């Protein structure tokens, strides 16, 4: 665990403790389960976003993709009677295709990730709204398909399955980013693409893979969201989720310049954002202030991080200086 992660964990615990003290309902099983469920749902696409951000890219179409794929998933089952495993496969395949498309546009046509995914944000949202004629794709098959319902909205030993999925993907993502050759390549490409090429890394392939991983996880997330809401209203479903993911990644120590960040950090970032959301509800703060609270905390967090780093640097400097005046013998030798 990085020092940064520990700081963030302390912040999560502190905020959680404050909320729990002010309003003990925070620790009620129902509230905890609900919050955990939201952490799972939002966590999936936040990890997705992190994989793109680490390559110094950005994915802005996550919310729109969640809406579009949600519509497709619901419609395949409700209107066409497609068996749900097939519908699930189709949705995940579509997600991968979108990821490949974004990666191709970015690496082969050399478009900027911001531009490509901004266009994606507009296009997928528009297609989803057109597809449903701006209506709502909804269904009632929770009762008709108990297996599907159980898998995506059920609980095991009181733990929502979204949380379990999040945990599984988070662990896999941790290994992938921090322990594999591919993860090392991701960090390398994000930190210095030119040096990565000089090291024989196929930088284009790495970047395409990052977008594919991102979209695949977004696809999984889209199914969870569709099952959670049971109806998808494409004009509002998943709005701003990409910004949510970016916020969680930045809180978790990912630099938008690429090449830095840890999965532990994103997970903690997601948890913190959901606790803040919960705090707004439980402390009776007007819910219109929701985003303002979130923004303020992120800003304070980033400022604290920068200040803390400057402070540590000063301490190191002072320690070096005093060590020098004590051992007056041969300063150059001490330094070496």
């Amino acid at each position: 665990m990085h020092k940064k992660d520990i700081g963030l964990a302390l912040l999560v615990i502190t905020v959680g403790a404050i909320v729990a003290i002010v309003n003990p309902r925070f620790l009620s099983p129902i509230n905890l389960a609900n919050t955990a469920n939201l952490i799972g749902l939002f966590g999936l696409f936040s990890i997705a976003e992190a994989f793109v951000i680490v390559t110094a890219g950005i994915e802005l179409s996550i919310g729109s993709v969640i809406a579009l794929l949600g519509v497709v998933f619901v419609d395949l089952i409700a209107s066409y009677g497609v068996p749900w495993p097939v519908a699930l496969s189709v949705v995940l395949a579509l997600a991968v295709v979108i990821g490949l498309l974004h990666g191709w546009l970015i690496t082969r046509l050399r478009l900027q990730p911001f531009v490509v995914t901004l266009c994606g944000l507009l296009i997928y949202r528009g297609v989803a709204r057109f597809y449903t004629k701006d209506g709502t794709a909804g269904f009632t098959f929770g009762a008709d398909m108990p297996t599907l319902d159980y898998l995506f909205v059920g609980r095991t030993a009181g733990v929502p399955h979204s949380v379990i999925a999040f945990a599984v993907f988070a662990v896999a993502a941790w290994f992938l980013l921090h322990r594999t050759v591919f993860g090392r390549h991701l960090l390398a490409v994000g930190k210095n693409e030119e040096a990565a090429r000089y090291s024989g890394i196929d930088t284009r392939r790495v970047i395409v893979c990052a977008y594919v991983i991102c979209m695949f996880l977004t696809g999984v997330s889209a199914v969870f969201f569709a099952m959670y809401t049971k109806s998808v209203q494409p004009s509002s479903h998943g709005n701003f989720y990409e910004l949510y993911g970016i916020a969680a990644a930045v809180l978790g120590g990912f630099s938008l310049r690429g090449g830095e960040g840890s999965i532990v950090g994103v997970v903690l970032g997601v948890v913190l954002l959901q606790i803040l959301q919960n705090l707004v509800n439980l402390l009776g703060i007007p819910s219109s202030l929701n985003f303002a609270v979130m923004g303020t905390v992120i800003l304070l967090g980033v400022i604290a991080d920068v200040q803390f780093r400057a402070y540590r640097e000063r301490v190191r400097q002072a320690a070096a200086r005093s060590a020098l005046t004590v051992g007056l013998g041969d300063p150059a030798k001490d330094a070496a």
Partner: protein
Amino acid sequence: MDHRRNMPITLDLLGITKIYPGAVALDAVSLGIKGGEVVGLIGENGAGKSTLMKVLGGAIRPDKGEIVIDGQRFAELSPAQALGHGIAFVHQELNPLTNLDVAGNILLGREIRKGVFGLLDQGAMERHVHPILEMLGARFSPSTAASELSLADLQLLEIAKALSISVRLLILDEPTSSLTLTETQRLMSVIRKLRDDGVAVLFITHRLSEVKTVADRVVGLRDGKNAGELQRDMIDRDAMVRLMIGRDIKQFHEGAAAREGQVVLRVKGLRTAAYPSAEVELAIHAGEILGLAGLIGAGRTELARTIFGLDPPLAGTVEMNGDRVPPGSVAEAIKAGICLVPEDRKSEGLFLDFSISENMVMPNLDAVSRRGFVDRRREYLLADRFRSRLSIKTHRLDRAAGELSGGNQQKVVLAKWLGMAPRLVILDEPTRGIDVGAKAEVYHLMGELAAQGVAVLMISSDMEEVIGVSTRVGVMSRGRITGLLERQDLSEEAILHLAVE
């Protein structure tokens, strides 16, 4: 302040000390300089030259010591004060704003305005800059876009920037590292002219021959301390080397005997995008060090990039041991046993924020991983082996590579490739900006590789290096190899003759 403007400066640094965590950058260093004098400042990387210059420029506050300018004492200087006393810098790293023209770059922050709205007076700016460029003998005009300038022209632009304030002390930090011979000579005459006008010039360089031609006095730094001074008539190469490293070093020229084995690399009819009409034919044998000389822009780096698969060739083939290497893929080139130590180690060779060990194993991750998972213990052991083999001076492999000195950074780049059992090593300007000691180690390593039967291709603009190290020298001009010189025919004149063909 203007009354001082035309007076020659008298500047003394007294007992300047600067401490960083874990290192004393400067330990009671003193240095004096007067108008009308050229002082060469020499020392190995990490000796404290740059830190001392930053103290002068106001970028660093010294922990102890005094700066005395014309009798006025300062504990520290702000950048504005430094500028106010006519102290101007030409930095080693070039940072032009490529979206502006030459005049805009030179007068950045001091733009000439006109009218009520304070709009830029383009005409006046160009008129102001013109005579400076004229004096420098620049081949570009004030309205040329900075993006169109070559590396050498950009260096001149930096110098013009320094001259555009009424300079009394000009500090040049490695100004010739990317200049060709003629451009260097022109710069030397500019320095002499400035000196005759009463300007003090402080000249930092690793190229000792330049110091010898232009300096009136040489000041040496070693490990952050004064190492001694040499007066004009005592300046020679050996004395300067002694000053820098505190002992004699044996000549690096190992006189590598032409021990030619079979052909390792064969390049046939290769054309690069830089010179679409020029074809390159080249063969390098096992165990030889082929120096590739030529003027900057002759197409040497482009040739290296194409052989290494970074750029696809327009035509032609690259063969390793008789097998054709699939073009345009670095991975294929590496598989064929080719490796490249790039010209710009900061942007192309290293991940400065990554640890030393991560940098060393980057192209070689497969060797330290199992089923795609990196084995961090094996990674450390491999890196540790290279640290001792290349005597990289650090006791912690998890330090960021960017914290190392230039010479040690270059060794890390070399270490990246040594683990791959390369058959052809291409080095592009391998000793640019690294100190004498590290240079000798790099040469030694090249000789060692050649002795093991590796073919070495060394691109270099340093004549002394090309002649001293190579077994054979190829000379490029405008994308073509204009000649190959055997060791016994090597001379500066012969190379230059081919380079301008």
